[in-house]
């Protein structure tokens, strides 16, 4: 299991906080491209906050006043506010890279840190975030909400989860699309090594539902170069298969294959207009994510 301090990276959060993460394109052309942190009238209630001089009296919740003899105003989710859902791959393969029995330095650890950092920035700018784990030992969906407690809830889920099973990203994407119904950003943080992800069917699904997928592919640095020496028995982390190989003899071919796969995912994402970022576990995520934010702006998402 991970701890809170394992997934909360203040430096990464501080770096990303300087950039405003754009939301999906607005369905209200009159309102223009989004990025607003202001709360306004909307169909969705968000929260109560204590009345301050200047607040709109029409938002005053008189029922709460009657009960508590204190003035509170209602806050609603602004339809110009961004909603974001983080789909974090918690399949067994995401445990690669750590020592047995631990998750620190694994791909899942990196994915959790990235999700928390991005979520923190979105919440700070007034947006709402949610979380769904793909794979893992239990199915969890956290609906998008704003506010600091949402971040705590995300951290709680991410630190408690244990990578297991298969990701089933296509099914997860369908499920997310069914739940969200209206425009939202879907951050897919995964290694995208499942065979089913090669055709990026899940991405197409999300796009069809009017959602904005954003891909962050994570691989461990050893998965790129296969640095092992002498004969090795490789065990499939998500299946029962195994393979005995001399990695020295196939290193070059393997490197070509894995890189080709990553490039395939990247091109596919680009083709579908989904911002894409690739990270290996020894890369500094800050600059990479900053580039992705830039890409999101360029793609007209904000």
């Amino acid at each position, binding site marked *: 299991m991970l701890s809170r301090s394992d997934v909360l990276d203040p430096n990464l959060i501080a770096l990303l906080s300087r950039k405003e993460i754009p939301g999906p394109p607005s369905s209200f052309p009159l309102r223009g491209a989004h990025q607003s942190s202001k709360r306004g009238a909307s169909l969705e209630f968000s929260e109560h906050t204590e009345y301050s001089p200047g607040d709109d009296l029409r938002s005053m919740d008189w029922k709460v006043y009657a009960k508590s003899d204190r003035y509170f105003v209602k806050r609603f989710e602004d339809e110009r506010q961004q909603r974001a859902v983080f789909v974090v791959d918690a399949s067994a*393969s995401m445990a690669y890279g750590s020592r047995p029995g631990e998750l620190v330095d694994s791909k899942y650890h990196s994915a959790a840190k990235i999700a928390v950092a991005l979520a923190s920035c979105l919440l700070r700018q007034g947006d709402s975030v949610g979380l769904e784990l793909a794979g893992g030992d239990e199915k969890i969906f956290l609906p998008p909400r704003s506010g600091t407690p949402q971040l705590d809830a995300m951290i709680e889920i991410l630190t408690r989860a244990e990578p297991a099973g298969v990701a089933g990203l296509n099914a997860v994407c369908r499920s997310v699309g069914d739940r969200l119904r209206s425009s939202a950003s879907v951050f897919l943080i995964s290694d995208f*090594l499942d065979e089913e992800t090669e055709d990026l069917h899940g991405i197409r699904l999300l796009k069809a539902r009017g959602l904005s997928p954003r891909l962050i592919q994570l691989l461990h640095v050893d998965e790129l170069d296969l640095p092992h020496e*002498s*004969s090795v028995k*490789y065990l*499939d982390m998500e299946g029962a298969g195994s393979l005995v190989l001399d990695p020295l*003899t196939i290193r070059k*071919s*393997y490197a070509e294959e894995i890189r080709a796969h990553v490039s395939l995912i*990247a091109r596919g994402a680009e083709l579908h207009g989904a911002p894409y970022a690739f990270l290996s576990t020894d890369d500094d995520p800050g600059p990479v994510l900053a580039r992705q934010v830039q890409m999101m702006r360029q793609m007209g998402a904000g």
Partner: protein
Amino acid sequence: MDFLRSFFLWGLLGIAAPIIVHLLGQRKRRVIPIATLRFLERARVKASAHLKLRRLLLLLARISILAALAILYAGPGCRTKAGREGPTSWALILDASPSMAAVRGGVSALDKAKDALLKALDRAGVEDKFIFTTSLHFDGKSHAAGFTADVGSVRRAAANAGVEHGRHDLAAALESVAALASSGEGMKILLATDLQANGWQKDKIALNDSVDLTIIDVGFDSPSNSWIEKVEQDKNGFTVNLHSMGLESEERKTVKMVLGDGAPLTAFVKGASAAFQIKTAVGMESGVASVAPGGDLALDDQLDFIFKGRSKLRVLVVNGDPKGFEIRDETLFIRRALAHDAGLGELFDLSEVRQGALTAAHIASADVVFMANPGAMPVEMQSALLERLESGAGLIVAAGDMWNSERDGQDFMAQLLAAPFRDVVSIRGDDATRRPFQAIDLNSFAGPMIELRDEHGADFSGLKVTKYWVLDVRPGQDVGVLMRLDNGVPLLVERTVGKGRTMLLATTVDRDGANLCLQPAFIPWLRSMLLYSSGKPAGLFSGWAVAGKPIAFPHGRAVDVQSVDGKITQVEAGGSFVPELPGIYRVLSDGIPIDLLAARTDPAESDLAKLKPGALDSIFGEGRYAIGSGEARGAAATVRGRSDVSNVFAAILLAALLLEAILSGRWSSLFKRKSFRPDLSGPDSRL
């Protein structure tokens, strides 16, 4: 191909290890979980075409590493192209003369020569035979055993060889070694020499056709040297004569001189000699002179020499004749010879006394007591004389008419005289059948008299003895006879008493019994007698002995020689001695030093000039030898041998290590991983 250490070839069995591992593949494997096997399978399929070849090459590389290591340790070699006709006989001759000690650039010619010969041994075949010798006079008998196959012992002998003092004859060494060549077998001779012109005593050396001679020239180009030729003593002091070759004659030099244990004296000179003003006196001492800069050869920069010392000998002349100082006085001529302003005055302090006035105090203060014609003496005087004699003083007794055999008998001064006298013979001139005198037998000179025989023998030819005393000299009495009359009768005898020496002249020292005192040789004779009796070194050696060469000993009796390193060597009477090293040698008789001998490096070795061009052709004949500079490689075409091929296997080892590292991918960990960025170009057929 052959091997120096074939035992290590057992290591070739180790190449079975990678083969067995390769075939069985039963190695302990690591188990690594991985996200997906899909890409590994694709990679395996893709690499399968090269996989077998790569594995095979890897196996070959690993086998080559183990095999190359084993062969390297075994010391591989093979015969060279020039000659594979069977075993070769090798004769290695090292010029070990003192000139080979010349040093240039911190390396001596001898070291270069030894290095070249050892390198030649490295090229020898495993079945070859060897003989090693130096240029020290080679008589061939010492190598009757002939050649040896034990190259190790030959290497050790060559490596441990050093400069040898003595008579060096390269021609004799060559001819003697060549004579050992068996007919039909042939021989390779390697001669390492500095080609010093002085080292070649022969104009022509004939070697038979079965001998291949290679000369390794280890001499220096333009040799230069400066050395001390001699040290001459005169009444004012010393003159040190220098000699140079290859140097500017006007080059400034520093000459130092140390006498005995004294402080060094320094002179700065340009040119050929340096003079030192020093007062000298009787007694022999040693000194050493040195010159700097001394040139290429350091052995001759210093010269030990012997000189007359500074202390005067105290001589007490006791006149036994009571008649007073007359013209026929016993000691007249002695007095004249030892007078202060006479020739011996600088060496001796003379005092005189009549026998009747002789006291123990006179005796105690004398180094030598010369008693001329002594008569009967009180017992206490005899005791005093005996005591002084035993403590190291000298006593010389000349016979005279005061002796009376009837009165004094055989016991007359028995403990003091070298031999008792028995009778007296007076030769009268009226006997026409014989000469009116006895002459001296010049060939009978022994001990200190030998020097006189060599230098002044002719001056004794006029000696006539008309009266002499017959002495009772018997064999086994340890009495030395130093002079005889021509009738065989001992004329001068000597005997050791305690630490001292007593000598007896069997005739008179005045003109009563002989004309000795009138001979030109009288004064040098007197000088030798006084010095010899006192135990002071006689100075019988003139000049220097040459280290390594024998020198005849003239002392007439068996003596001991103490070398510079303290070793004692006995030299029989009339024998010879070989000083092995330059330096001062002490001649001892019954433990008492009686003489000094100075030995030096052969001065012929100081001139380092090489043979003139073309001289070797005239010595050996054109085409009868090969010559290389500094090592034998220059004549490799005619030198059959063995080549060390370790470098080939070392290259194979390195190449195999490199190949194994590349094929196994071990390099990858050395390089920093390049960061990967996806390629966004290219087909996307899977979407």
